[in-house]
């Protein structure tokens, strides 16, 4: 087992445990912090796959901006206490069982797929994830969607202000 495999298993265990703790912790602030841990683990996976641009953007946008927005809203509403009313235990069980069934079906499907046998993801080499290559693709082939996304951001900003306005 070389160092990349060891790092893969460590990061995978970290991502799964943190994702479970997002659901299991009662305090919403703790959930947000565990979700930040999930995003750090996924960024570690991106670095292992040599997708450096995506790794940095994931850290800045998700862990930096979006999670801080979540924390602001939770603290603004003073929700950082453990008072979620208990749902019916059967409803919780049904949700967990249906998610587990979906996981089992998909895993058994992937296990038999002949197209995926002996395929490997290229680790720690290959230059497509570097910012030079992605920047060229973004500003040549994908320049129209890139500009449209700025209009999307403008409309999201106007929408958030209109919804949040007191009237």
């Amino acid at each position: 087992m070389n160092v990349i495999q060891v790092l893969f298993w460590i990061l995978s265990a970290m991502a799964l445990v943190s994702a479970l703790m997002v659901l299991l912790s009662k305090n919403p602030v703790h959930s947000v912090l565990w979700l930040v841990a999930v995003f750090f683990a996924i960024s570690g996976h991106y670095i292992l796959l040599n997708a450096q641009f995506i790794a940095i953007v994931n850290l800045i946008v998700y862990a930096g901006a979006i999670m801080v927005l979540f924390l602001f809203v939770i603290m603004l509403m003073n929700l950082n206490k453990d008072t979620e009313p208990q749902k019916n235990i059967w409803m919780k069980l049904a949700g967990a069982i249906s998610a587990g069934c979906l996981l089992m079906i998909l895993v058994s499907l992937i296990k038999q797929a002949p197209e995926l046998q002996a395929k490997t993801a290229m680790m720690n080499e290959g230059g497509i994830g570097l910012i030079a290559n992605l920047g060229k693709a973004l500003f040549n082939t994908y320049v129209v969607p890139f500009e449209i996304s700025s209009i999307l951001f403008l409309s999201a900003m106007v929408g958030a202000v209109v919804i949040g306005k007191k009237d």
Partner: protein
Amino acid sequence: MPIQYYIYLSLALFCIGIAGVLTRRNAIIIFMSVELMLNAVNLLLVAFSKMHHAVATAVDKVNNVGTDGQIFVFFVMVVAAAEVSVGLAIIVMMYRNAHSVDVNFLNRLKN
């Protein structure tokens, strides 16, 4: 690494997100579970892009096969950021009207 390991990891994260949407009642936790599902899909897209790049590199040494997948991850992040801003505004408005973020309070349309 074999591509199956990445698929299993992404499926596990996605199903944890689904379980969160189905079992929790706090609207903010449900929203965070949706973010978790988006991230699972992003991880899978990057892994598949590197898989196709590995296949193409075996034939041709210099290529940029697989760039599209990583660009797609970038656009998923763009849309997720816009979605979070609007969604949190809606949750704040819901809290202002109902003084709670419990989604069971949303099951009535009148008053």
